[in-house]
């Protein structure tokens, strides 16, 4: 039997060191602020850097329970019968990728594992590069038996933004006469019974810019009465809550939404136990950085009210 001391892992030491560093740093900053001394902004930047870097190095992560808005998308995919068709649109660029690429990968993994067919497309030209990442890390790597054109198809990027959406809601072939490999639309088996977006079982837009999920709802979801869901960068997530649940049935907001989805997927089936969970990994530094930012806000507010009471601020 191991003694409790021997059971301590490097990660435990890392968590302790990180927390002690952060607490001591916050105490020093609070003491300096309350004693009326200036805190150089570069010290704040350095402190934030360490608060993010230490959990990355020591791999501090937390488990997350899926919130209803995330769970709704998971349950929707679970409820789809085999051979249903889902469209996933990569409407993002590398700048948004740290947040939304994990959710795009997790959604692809979930759909393919349930034998749901996927139509991939992009409204951002840089989405093609991100799509290629999903192909190399998930589609070809984890599902080598899935065939291009039968189980999934890549339509690539088409310029036009809202114009593209306005057309594909009634006619796919008009906008995408071929897939990205120049295979004619009529020769792609996945499209045998699909003439437009109205024949799809679910559309998921991954992004955070324009065109994005708002345009999808405007031009496709609402006019065609097609089930829509989204995975977006956190900065736009609050704007999308009014669309839930009537106009979008589920929403993954930022890296937390992605982490919740990864955890939901991993807990659902043992075959996902070893799947990569980049969003969950990011939530460790994310959580500690938020604690630091919240502490700054609290310290700043206490100082503000104290100085106002003393009459130093009108």
């Amino acid at each position, binding site marked *: 039997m191991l003694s409790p001391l021997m059971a301590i892992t490097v990660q435990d030491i890392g968590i302790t060191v990180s927390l002690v560093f952060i607490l001591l740093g916050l105490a020093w900053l609070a003491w300096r602020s309350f004693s009326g001394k200036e805190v150089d902004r570069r010290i704040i930047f350095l402190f934030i850097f360490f608060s993010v870097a230490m959990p990355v190095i020591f*791999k501090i992560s937390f488990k997350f329970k899926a919130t209803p808005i995330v769970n709704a998308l998971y349950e929707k995919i679970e409820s789809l019968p085999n051979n249903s068709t889902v469209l996933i649109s990569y409407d993002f660029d590398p700048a948004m990728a740290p947040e939304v690429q994990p959710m795009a990968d997790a959604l692809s993994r979930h759909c393919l594992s349930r034998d749901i067919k996927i139509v991939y497309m992009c409204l951002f*030209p840089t989405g093609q590069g991100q799509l290629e990442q999903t192909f190399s890390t998930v589609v070809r790597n984890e599902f080598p038996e899935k065939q291009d054109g039968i189980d999934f198809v890549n339509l690539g990027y088409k310029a036009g933004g809202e114009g593209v959406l306005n057309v594909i809601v009634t006619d796919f072939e008009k906008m995408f006469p071929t897939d990205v490999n120049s295979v004619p639309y009529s020769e792609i088996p996945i499209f045998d019974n699909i003439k437009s977006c109205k024949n799809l079982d679910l559309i998921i837009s991954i992004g955070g810019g324009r065109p994005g999920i708002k345009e999808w*709802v405007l031009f496709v979801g*609402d006019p065609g009465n097609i089930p829509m869901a989204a995975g977006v960068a956190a*900065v736009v997530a609050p704007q999308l809550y009014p669309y839930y649940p009537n106009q979008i049935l589920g929403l993954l907001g930022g890296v937390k939404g992605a982490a919740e989805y990864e955890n939901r997927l991993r807990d659902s089936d043992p075959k996902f136990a070893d799947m990569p969970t980049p969003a969950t990994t990011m939530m460790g530094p994310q959580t500690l950085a938020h604690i630091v930012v919240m502490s700054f806000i609290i310290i700043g507010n206490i100082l503000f009210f104290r100085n106002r009471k003393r009459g130093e601020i009108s």
Partner: protein
Amino acid sequence: MELFGIWVAALLTLGIFSFLYKDNPVYKICESIFIGVSAGYWAIANFFDALHKKFWVGVFPTDGSDPNYMLWFGALLGVLMLLRLSSKIGWIARWPLAFIVGATAGLYMMLYFVSNAMNQVASTMRDVIVTSPETHLIMWGETIGSILIVIGVVSGLVYFFFSKEHKGVFGYTARVGIWFLMITFGAHFGYTVMSRMSLLIGRIDFLFRDWLHLLN
């Protein structure tokens, strides 16, 4: 080649981070490279995706399909737009601009009204007291949520009604609206912090994993 790319990316990342210390020539160089590369990328992407794939292939199809002559109209408008570079006949550029504004407004008007006005108004018109369909008992969580939506929508609208002075009951309601707005702004700020932190984590992860090999 991949190693070279990683080194370039890492040095450019550090160069951009150096601005946090103070403005410096290295940061300026990295910033200029970013702007130049972005401009070049978008110029090439637009040339091939719009001019070549949409216009050229549409007008001169190679697969035996009929040419789409309507595309010449779009091309003409595009050329007219470039006339704004001339001081003498720059006014002609207003025509394609007017076309874009008119077409966009027409395209958006009804769809926007239905999706972002009518459908969202309908979403707020819900039962205030929510009961379980099976047991007919009140579901307190959903009921409180519905009451908050009603109070938030009404007080928020009252705050933006400036035709009546914000005094008395009207003023108190507007003040409640301010609280709802503040909470909304707080949520926006929180999500924005999360977004920006994610980018920072992404960069630090790249530096430690791909460049320094500190992580597996």
